[in-house]
């Protein structure tokens, strides 16, 4: 392995989604970047995805620079280090009646933790996702619960409620929508929201962030929905419309890296999950894509 530019052992020793499996169908060599390390990937003769630290020589091949690969949730994942834990579970993904759809992978000129925080935030719905995920005057973020689960080492925000004019591609009108958020990985989050079509069950939306560097990322968006009516294109494009609205907001946040010092930014009650997230990152000693708290 070449020497890594990323010096944060926490970030190095995580699993990262790199591309949807449907993009790795043949022996074409494709390239990407993870934590400033160029990587390449392809599907070999045996039909397995192989990933390696790429050096750009003609005929560059894995050799001793091969990286570990796991296939999960329709993506392949890799790591530059030696993760102690497996990739977090999303049990709903396996349920037979779900539609599992890769919505898109988008490049964003922002840090990974800024994306996670935006994903957790409900306060911006009426202003950024006007007439879709929110609308004035329904702007209140009602009290919700946040806990850090010790057994699973993840953040859980529950009892979140928000009035949404059009919560999903399958919606037929405004509704009070229940949300649960999980942050099971410093740069991934999973959201559960009431399904417009199935009372008591949830649609699942997950973001898996692949940091190119500390201020540029690629975000992979997975949908696992209970929706028999919409076609894949409608479902994908609905999610892309939402994300396209977030993008300029994300890219205009300064500083680009998320400040972990509790005094750096002034939170309000609605930011409870963001406060827990920042504290959780501090506790883990995450240094990548953040401004660490001053000692």
């Amino acid at each position, binding site marked *: 392995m070449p020497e890594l530019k990323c010096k944060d052992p926490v970030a190095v020793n995580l699993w990262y989604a790199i591309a949807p499996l449907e993009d790795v169908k043949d022996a074409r060599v494709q390239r990407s970047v993870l934590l400033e390390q160029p990587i390449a990937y392809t599907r070999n003769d045996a039909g397995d995805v192989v990933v390696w630290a790429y050096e750009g020589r003609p005929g560059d091949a894995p050799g001793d620079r091969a990286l570990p690969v796991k296939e999960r949730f329709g993506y392949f994942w890799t790591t530059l280090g030696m993760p102690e834990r497996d990739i977090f579970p999303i049990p709903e993904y396996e349920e037979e009646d779900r539609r599992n759809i*890769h919505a898109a992978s988008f490049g964003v*000129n922002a840090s990974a933790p800024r994306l996670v925080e935006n994903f957790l935030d409900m306060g911006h719905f009426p202003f950024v996702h006007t007439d879709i995920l929110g609308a004035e005057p329904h702007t209140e973020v009602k009290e919700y619960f946040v806990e850090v689960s010790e057994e699973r080492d993840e953040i859980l925000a529950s009892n979140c409620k928000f009035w949404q004019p059009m919560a999903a591609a399958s919606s037929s009108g405004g509704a009070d929508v229940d949300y649960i958020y999980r942050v099971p990985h410093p740069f991934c989050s999973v959201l559960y929201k009431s399904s417009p079509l199935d009372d008591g069950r949830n649609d699942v939306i997950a973001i898996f962030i692949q940091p190119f560097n500390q201020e540029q990322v690629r975000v992979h968006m997975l949908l696992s929905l209970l929706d028999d009516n919409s076609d*894949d*294109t409608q479902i994908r494009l609905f999610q892309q419309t939402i994300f*396209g609205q977030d*993008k300029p907001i994300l890219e205009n946040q300064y500083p680009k890296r998320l400040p972990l010092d509790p005094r750096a930014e002034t939170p309000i009650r609605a930011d409870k999950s963001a406060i827990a997230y920042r504290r959780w990152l501090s506790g883990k000693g995450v240094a990548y894509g953040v401004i660490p708290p001053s000692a």
Partner: protein
Amino acid sequence: MLKLYDYELSGNCYKLRLLLSFLGVQYRSELIDFYPGNQHKSPDFRQINPLGQLPVIDDNGLVLRDAQAILVYLASKYDPSNRWYPRESPELLGQISQWLAFADAITATASAARLHDGLFYSEIDVEAARAGAHRLFRVLDEHLFFAEEEGQDWICPGEHPTIADIACFPYTVLSEEGGISRIDYPAIRRWSDRFKRIPGFVVMSGVFPAGPAATDRRQAVA
């Protein structure tokens, strides 16, 4: 009903949604999975547009491609006021055509940089695209500044905006998604705000509405 082969994040499709909204023309969007599905390059879609590009319209069997061409068609057909594309004025038509071509150059540069950063079009020389967009924005900014000095609000002379404004608007206001800052182009910013206040204006993902205009001209400093 008029059918638009449409993709939300496409600035070229947005040009047509804007004009159709300004004119109050009913239409149906046929959603194309441009990304990640690449549906516009599929054999089926190439039957509709052999170039494999969006947007395309189908108006009662007339199939047209190219955003600028479609703007000309829609304004000529559906604008009885004749203001968006004033067919009677050779001088204006010449100027409008000049800026439609300019809009295509904005697409080739600013939109290319946005595709590079957002959708991983890695074969694009992004530095060249950004530099090209800055050269165009400098020209547009100066043009708009001198137009304002003459009391003009729009790209082409007259009281009313034309399809030249529509053609130049989307990829200019989306430029920051391609790493092209507009901080050095204050006349472009004032023009975008005026554009966003045209009755019937609609947003797309990445474009936000403007607040109300200052009522006192002295407060309306850039």
